[in-house]
């Protein structure tokens, strides 16, 4: 029995390879498609639970607590900036030309929220106006 | 009671639904570690190296620095013969991306010597076998003694592909 190990790092080899999947194609589910169509019409849709009344944004098929199928689709109103962050580097560490501001936009009386790029004066809690209905949203503080 | 149902789709239907497509960008550098580094260098020299546990006598190919049964470090480097018996062989008509191949690719596992036909575990390699499709179909390749056909020395890079295939002697 022996512990003969090579301690010179350069004598140890490594093998290079890549992630073999070429791409993933994710389906949105029925509620995901309803949400996307809502965005095209300039609306943010949510879905309400028939038992507890909770409104899910983006809409979800079922309520995670009551565990029943959710009911009608409602339009989420009253967007406000819950929190935000300022990003200076991209995901490979390179400096961005112009810092990017990303915020979490919540809606009055609804559960959940959406990400958006934020323009205007940055203050957590301030109401926002939605400039572009996309993923992510583009909003401006009022 | 539940009323929703799931929604199966055919491939053509997928075009009519909005989807999100994404490509992962992961690249990996796997360390060969102690045992496989020596193994790969051995392949470059035209040798198949194994590692022996002196407690139970088992020879590991590909080599391992510890014995999985005795759970102690293995002790010796041994060179096993580049000859062995074909345990199983198959002929593939599909590539790893599920594309159709015109000529079958024949691969299998080889039990290398020293070992006997009664061993449940033995030094073995998974590799290509150079024989005909017929030999695979009628199973005549099973149990035959095969030897490694090495690539010429200049073309060896320290990889399992330094062996071109195993062929009947």
């Amino acid at each position, binding site marked *: 029995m022996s512990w003969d190990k090579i301690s010179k790092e350069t004598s140890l080899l490594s*093998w290079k390879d890549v992630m073999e999947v070429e791409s993933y194609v994710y389906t949105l589910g029925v509620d995901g498609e309803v949400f996307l169509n809502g965005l095209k019409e300039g609306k943010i849709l949510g879905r309400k639970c028939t038992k507890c009344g909770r409104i899910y944004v983006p809409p979800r098929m*079922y309520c995670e607590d009551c565990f029943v199928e959710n009911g009608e689709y409602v339009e989420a109103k009253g967007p406000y900036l819950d929190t935000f962050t300022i990003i200076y580097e991209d995901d490979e560490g390179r400096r961005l030309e112009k810092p990017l501001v990303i915020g979490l936009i919540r809606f009055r009386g609804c559960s959940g929220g959406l990400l958006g790029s934020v323009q205007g004066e940055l203050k957590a809690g301030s109401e926002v106006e939605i400039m572009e209905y996309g993923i992510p949203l583009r909003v401006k503080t009022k | *009671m539940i009323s929703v149902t*799931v*929604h*199966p789709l055919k491939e053509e239907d997928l075009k009519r639904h909005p989807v999100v497509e994404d490509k992962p960008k992961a690249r990996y550098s*796997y360390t060969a570690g102690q045992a496989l580094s020596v193994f790969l260098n051995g392949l470059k020299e035209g040798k198949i190296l194994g590692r022996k546990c002196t407690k139970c006598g088992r020879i590991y190919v590909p080599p391992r620095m510890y014995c999985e049964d005795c759970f102690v470090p293995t002790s010796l480097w041994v060179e096993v013969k580049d000859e062995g018996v074909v*345990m199983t062989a198959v002929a593939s008509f599909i590539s790893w991306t599920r594309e159709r191949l015109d000529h079958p690719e024949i691969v299998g596992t080889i039990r290398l010597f020293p070992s006997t036909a009664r061993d449940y575990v033995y030094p073995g390699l998974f590799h290509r076998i150079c024989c005909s499709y017929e030999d695979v179909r009628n199973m005549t390749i099973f149990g035959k003694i095969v030897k490694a056909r090495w690539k010429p020395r200049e073309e060896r890079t320290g990889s*399992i592909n330094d062996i071109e295939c195993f062929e009947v002697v």
Partner: protein
Amino acid sequence: MRTNLRFRPVAVIGAGMTPFRRRMLDTPQELAWEASRRALDEAGLELRDVDCVVIGSAPDAFDGVHMKGEYLAHGAGGVRKPVSRVYVGGATGVMTAISAWYHVASGLCQKVLAVAEEKMSPGRPHPQSVFRYIWDPITEKPLNPNLIWIFAMEMHRYMNVNRVSKEDIALVSVKNKRNAKKNQYSQLGGDITVDDVLKSEVLVWPVQLLDVSPVSDGAAAMVLVSGDIARRYTDTPIWVEGVGWTLDNTSWPGRELAYPRYLENAARMAYKMAGIERPQKEIDVVEPYDPFDYKELHHLEGLLLAKKGEAPTLMREGFFDVDGEIPSSPSGGLLGVGNPIAAAGLMKTISIYWQLKGTAGGMQVKKSVHTGVAQAWGDLMQASTVIVMRN
């Protein structure tokens, strides 16, 4: 001879699943929710009654989502509850049930929801390409293998050592697809003949297209509760009497492939717990894992329901048919119903549960059943899980 006196008794009181199909529009969480909802409905419970959740889901790389088990949380009732994820490749389905079992058997939880889900359709170019990293990166991947190669190698070795012909093996595919006709959740139920199997596309000789189970999306769920409250919810609780699981190494090129020793180990563990001394005499119905037709024979031998090399003979004699001595895969198995990796094993467990309860509908076997076994297998010829249930 029972040896499980230290564990609390555990009973299954509800189960549910989605149909298995090649690709679904629904998201993974929606699939999990549908199966979970059905299971809770059959059990007569609401989510707030469940105290622990177990989620089984196979490689994250299939769905393309990190921590795929936890991702299902809100669809599997796993919000603000203790949740465990299990993953042992294809053996996950039965492992999910086993994990739920020990949550209850230990006394930690009273009522557990076990959910298994898989969505294999997002990967491109083909879900099989996702399997590429199952191989050892240095000694196996450079040969550009396709996953089917390893099954073909094992199948050919099994055929060679036991002198089995392709015709005998094809009988399994014919039987399972025929059984699947009675299963409303199945993807590929139908009547095929041995000839159809032998004429189908040769993928990797000896594996042909009709020898293989399909790629699928789907989910399944089960509710397990402590024995002392089971009869509040049902007159026919189905008791989990034995569990077993074993792992082997990934050095399959250095191992005899014709016999799965790791499965025998798991089966003996489960049988000992259940007090089964003569499996062939004491087991009434079995669901062995059948991603390929030869695998069912391979596993029937590992489960000690046939002597080594004897399974093909018994299959030919009709011993394992739906009206035979020990019906095997009455649900139609993976070959008939579909193979969403993690959900498939749990589907098999649910099939035994329904057989023992007498609610299997068109799939119900004619003889009366008292003891049933479900088994799953996973990874590179490594892992096997076994569960024994009685009514």
